[in-house]
């Protein structure tokens, strides 16, 4: 399979960004391959109601 890309003139004005976080990339330029993945674990069970016991204490 052949795939042809023609990049004509690119002129950007002003970019306003608040934040780039968590292994993400803000790229002005070319790249061959970009592979990004993320796992975010905050299920409802992550909400613990009770006395403030340590999380995964030593020896458990």
């Amino acid at each position, binding site marked *: *399979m052949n795939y042809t890309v023609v990049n004509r003139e690119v002129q950007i*004005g*002003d970019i306003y960004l608040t934040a780039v976080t968590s292994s993400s*990339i803000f*790229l002005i*330029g070319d790249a061959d391959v970009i592979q990004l993945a993320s796992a975010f674990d*905050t299920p409802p069970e992550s*909400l613990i109601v009770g006395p403030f016991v340590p999380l995964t204490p030593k020896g458990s």
Partner: protein
Amino acid sequence: MKRLSVVQLLNSKTFLLSSVLQIGDSREINARSNVLAVQRQYELFYGSEGEVVFPVFTKPIPTLDVPMSVQTYRLHESPVISVRSIYLIAASTASVVHIGSTSTVKGETRIKHIRQLAESTTFREASIRMTKDG
């Protein structure tokens, strides 16, 4: 050949937690971050916490294979990517702000977020609820 990146003005405030501002070309970027975020209703931290590994930090994340059968031809009619200005407040947690071209970018972030609240005074017996995966 890669294009030339021209940025006339970059105004950024903060780069923290292993984030990178790269001006110029690069070949390979590998950005990884593991975050254990614990929010408690009261200020309290036991020193030996988070030493047991949570599954979210060890489970493999499947990646999409890049099919080599696709022959890609890039024609740069204009060899320049031009940006007048960038206003960026912050880059954080192994992120990359890159002015210039690169070849391979791999990024992975794993976040475990736990909130701990004080129990209500009426149900003092039913105290702790912890998940199977920790």
